């Protein structure tokens, strides 16, 4: 099986904070079925950025998204977004967080 494509998010920005930025980053990501996003070096990933990133990645056709090296607060935000996604009609990719 091919290893999943991994992207260093800090190469985009260290402050990932707006919806516009989330959409832009999602557009730049490889259109793969599975992606690993490494947040090492990212100082802030705001809820709106993450929301837009995940939606954009879903629109790219990615069905599995693995988050690496996220802060405690980013992990909490991802859990919140997942819980809201459960009650929304939007189809999100499978979100996994790895230490």
């Amino acid at each position: 099986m091919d290893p999943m494509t991994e992207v260093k998010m800090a190469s985009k920005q260290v402050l990932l904070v707006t919806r516009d930025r989330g959409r832009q980053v999602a557009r730049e990501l490889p259109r793969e079925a599975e992606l690993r996003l490494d947040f090492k070096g990212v100082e802030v990933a705001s809820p709106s950025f993450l929301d837009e990133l995940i939606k954009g990645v879903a629109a790219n056709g990615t069905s599995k998204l693995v988050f690496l090296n996220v802060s405690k607060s980013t992990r909490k935000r991802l859990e919140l977004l997942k819980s809201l996604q459960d009650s929304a009609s939007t189809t999100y990719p499978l979100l996994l967080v790895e230490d």
Partner: protein
Amino acid sequence: MSIHVTVNGALNQDTFARSVSAVKDDEQVLEINLRQCNFVDSYSVIELLIIMRRAERANWKTLLTLPRRKQMSNYLSGMGLLELMSDTVKVSGSKPRPRKPDGDQFLPVTPLDLAAGEFGIEELCNFAYPNLPYSLREEFIDSLAEIGSNVVQHADAYYAFISGQRLDVPYRGRLPPRLHLVVGDTGIGIRKSLSQAQPEVGEMSEEDAILRAIEPGVTGRPGINSGVGLYTILESVKGLGGEMRIRSGSATVVFNRQGRTVLHTPGVPGTVVSVELCRPSG
């Protein structure tokens, strides 16, 4: 109607509501009397700027009486009130020195560049970030980004102001370093903004609309946004033992670990959101 802001002593986020009165008359006057004022915080400066800009838009006459103490007038000038208010305001009192922001204002009171959209907010985040204490950086940037973006996306405002201040003294059990973010706009307010997507909110009080806006998953743009911004900020604030204050129209709701309190300020327009982050306490 006329609106009067009369200050005897300190004008801050706790005293602002009781300093404002609205009188039903045939006048269209905004009168701000700071003659006896001996302190003003960035929250109040932004509130005053919002009221003044709205009065200008409605062609009201605006009168501003500066503090009797020259030192206080200079401080007000340093906070940007005189530089950022409209040119049509009639000012009485001795002329203060030109604006020179105080050192504790790592983000001096500044107009938001609404035309720049969210990338303008991102620029502000990048500007403020290096000056923030490590322990509160993430929460402050989150708050600035989410509240600033709300103004850009939802407020339909023609003016908005923002400020960030570091305070190194304890206040009401909140421990330093304390970071105070204030974002205010002249826009349509939370009730009207939310009611565009949820018509039932239009029938609510401003206070109930604020409480609705803070719930996770509630947004003025359902299907586009997820409604996580304000909720996330409030969770951070509660976790740290800080305070979040949302004024929309005449209602202000103050949230902290102890619960919430509601204040009423008659006749004031727009929305002002302030967040105080502080060193975590037990």
